[in-house]
């Protein structure tokens, strides 16, 4: 087995890497509720109970004050998806690579998979569910996407729309190239970039007209 010169070294490397991987995975998802430490388990456990302590905080989500129990290490994406039932925010990578989880925090687009929920206390969070008005009228950017049949599978769509809405707040009249740069932190694996850009530009135009 010429390709396995040093199996000892292999064991150590792999097991340590796996351990680290596991710790990261555990850290990223821990809290109460569905994914998170359920309360019964928490009471019975000592070792990781410290990491699971929740505090009741009130968050401003889509214009509403929402009280919610949050762990120290809980990410905003998890709070939105698993505690507040706002599943329109998607997880594509959970590591700041793809932008599927983008939400606005005080009008600025952020990757919610990589923002701690505690850090948004006192700030305004807007997710895809918060764009349309209460009577169901779509936000002009959403309307632009509908008008132009933007996106394919749409798993990346809410992230792109939130990025675009954030970008348009600072540059309401972008060129195609400027908008492409504005949303370049978002990945689309259907690679519908051409139609996405056309749709979001239509959204920008809708916004200016509104």
């Amino acid at each position, binding site marked *: *087995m010429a*390709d396995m*010169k040093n199996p000892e070294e*292999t064991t150590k*490397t*792999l*097991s340590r890497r*796996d351990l680290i*991987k*596991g710790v990261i*995975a*555990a850290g990223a*998802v*821990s809290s*109460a509720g*569905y*994914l*998170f*430490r*359920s309360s*019964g*388990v928490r009471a*019975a*456990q000592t070792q*990781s109970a410290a990491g*699971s302590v929740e505090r009741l905080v009130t968050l401003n989500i889509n214009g509403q004050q929402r009280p919610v129990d949050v762990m120290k290490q809980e990410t905003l994406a998890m709070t939105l998806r698993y505690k507040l039932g*706002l*599943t*329109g925010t*998607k*997880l594509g*990578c*959970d*590591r700041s*690579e*793809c932008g599927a989880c983008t939400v606005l925090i005080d009008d600025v687009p952020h990757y919610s998979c990589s923002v701690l929920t505690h850090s948004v206390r006192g700030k305004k969070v807007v997710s*895809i*569910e918060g764009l349309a008005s209460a009577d169901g009228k*779509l936000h002009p950017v*959403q309307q632009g996407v*509908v008008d132009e*049949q933007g996106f*394919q*599978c*749409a*798993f990346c769509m*809410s992230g792109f*729309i939130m990025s675009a809405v954030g970008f348009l707040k600072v540059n309401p009249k972008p060129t*195609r190239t400027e908008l492409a740069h504005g*949303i*370049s932190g978002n*990945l*689309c*694996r*259907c*690679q*519908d970039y*051409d*139609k996405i*850009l056309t749709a979001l530009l239509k959204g920008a135009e809708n916004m200016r007209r509104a």
Partner: protein
Amino acid sequence: MPTNKVNIPNYRLLGKNYTTPDMVAKVTGKSKYAEDFRAEGMLFCKLLLSPLPHGRVKRIDASAALAMPGVKAILTADELPPPAPFITDDGVMIPADPRAERGLTNEPLYQGEPVLAVAAVDELTAAEAIEKIQIDWERLPFAVDPMVTLKPGGPNARTDGNVWVVPPPAPPKPGEKPAGPPLPQVQDFKWTDAEYAEFKQGKLPMSKPSMEWSYGDIEAGFKKADLVVDEAFVTPNTSHQCMETRTAMAYWQNGKVFVHCSTQSTAQTVPAIARWLSIDQTNVVVISEYTGGGFGSKVTSGISLTIPVLLSKKVNAPVMMRVSREEEHYIGRARPGFHGRMKAGFTKDGRLVALDMFVVTDGGPYGPQGDANSSGRIVSLCYTPENMRWRGVNVITNTPPRGAQSQPGGAQGVMIMEPVMNKAANKLGLDQVAIRRINAPAGKAGIGGAIKGKRDHVTSAFVQEALDKGAELFRWNERKSQVKKSGTKARGIGVAVSAYSAGSIGFDGLFVIKPDGKIYIQSGVGNLGTESMIDSHRVVAEVLGVPWEQCVVTWGNTAKHLPWTCPSGGSQTIHAMTRAAHATAMDAKQKLQEIAAMDLGGTPADYEVGGGRVFRKGGGAGLTFAQAAQRAIKLGGKYDGHEVPETVSRMTKASVTGLAGQGLLAAAKDKYKRDGITNSYVAGFAEVEVDLETGEYRIVDYVGVADVGTVIHPRAFGGQMFGRTSLGWGHALAQKWVYDQHYGAPLAKRFYNSKPPTILDVPVNNFKWAAVDIPDPETPVGARGIGEPPVGAGASAVLNALVDALGENIFRRAPVTLDIILTALETGKPGDDPLTAHI
């Protein structure tokens, strides 16, 4: 009797843009993908993945994990149902394959293969339980590079060998149903010393193949040749990396399993799950309303969904398995990389008279992929060699399982052949468009090898038309003479031809015209983003002459009575399901005419259908659809679905019964004739600009012209043209796997290191697409699929443009990264390693 000659003159709906009915849910975040469902008492599971590229589980100690509060159960490979034989709907017996992939394994064949799973009250507890499990491993030899395992004395990826061989099918016994395909076998195959010496020279040995076919007389072809080009090329392994991973959630109720999953094909996933679990398909319900991309990796979802399914049975509670991005790298499928060598003979006017094609595929550990054979078939179609031999070796490696990826095999074949076409044109002093035009398929062109002297042929091909239209849109002739180099920048242009299968036949359609006058269409197509799930049903409204707004489409849940539908893979849907929709609309039309004749006198032929009514020809008495629906319910029998048509398949029959009595029910199987195999074609044109100081290059602009018959929904079509072309660009620019060969460990597992194109990598401002707009003559509305051929055209047009900008001595593999270009410019030799995989 259905014929192909049903002309629908001046389409009202087909070929027009409209808004698909899933858009508002998508933009508001209300669309639910697999991970967005919750069920009462839902548990979570986590996977233990193999740390070894190849090993055997000697002992599992899960006691500490199982003792943790909140841990509900462990599932190991020992608890999976054994691989079982099954019988297809057509009565063909598929034998059990002991080497087939399963959800979990005790002998992982690649690093990251799932070994066991733990279900717990929450995901953190499950993840901690996994950390507490101890496994004693036996290490086994491994190979991650197909070239390494072929060396004399090289390690084998499987204990019994390193190459797949598929025995020829047994001849059918008289009076018996034809036997299913024979099981693939594994062989131990190594190069001879002479072949190995050739490999060390940087040449791919044309060794003993494990598969081959041919047509014509290749020796005679080479004798006719004025020029012989002999080139090798390496294409990358590329993960599908769908934005949505293959997360799944399952629960059991009254002996039925409900599976929320991410799949390309709603209807087809039912028998797949039934097969994996060895249960009857009537006990499987698939819910998949929205799927976050597939590209071939989720044709019937993935076998990994059996893990939450079996755990939920074991613990009698719903179980969600969230698949992380890294896990998706392992279990999420990838396109097999190819090592290919082409020996091609051309006459001096550019005609390809002989082609000897040899490919080695890097196939991962499970089952031989169809890619190898497809690569030969597509090359034989795209460039119509007069005489051809194709040979292949399907190598087994300890790398994640491969699966079909947009234009599977075809893209690799085109990428290996295009540099040869390019070189031949340059050597012969011919124009690049002209040499492809001379060799382009036309009409009922041949495809693949000859069996008893006869080859298959395609339904139609209009590739010369596509090349002409593309050359004009791209201004090829003008741009040919432009200055290539200015200062530190070099520019080049390239063209490539590509083809792929684009439609199947024989599936069912189903809809009900209800007393509210609306048409309720049942769609078994998956909603993976191509919109063919909706687009194909526009044919119903077109044929029945009703506004589209009068149609309501139900999809995404097999409990809602869906018809038997083609797999949404290989771009079959728009072809297969427009045919089924057409047949079903004709069934409705017939029933409407019969009801009108019964009520209003005369014969059915005296009536026509249009504007939501059935009425006497030339105007006069008639019934609205609403009235006819009421009459159908009164009449019962075949009119409202109480009598089930014999011709439709098992799943459709059950769905007809489920919907019976609600209105006028139309159900039919596509039995339209087809002469030939349906393929679509693309001619791609690209310009690139290279920075000679940094090696960076960008695609300046691109034109893609498709020969796809009737375009049904232009905007969705344009999305496929751009998206699939862009997938091809990714193969040229950056996407690949990288392995630590010493440990057999993958290094490019995430987006940031496998580098799929971002919006800044592609020419979003300078992309044009067009279609030749000639309907396919072998299908009712003339439509063929488009999702495949743009890939190879996109990759190769860019690579050919790079050669035009920099010359021939730069690269021998894709992707072409800037370091390859810089090294080549500096040394005057190709800047890449010719044959090593995964670097």
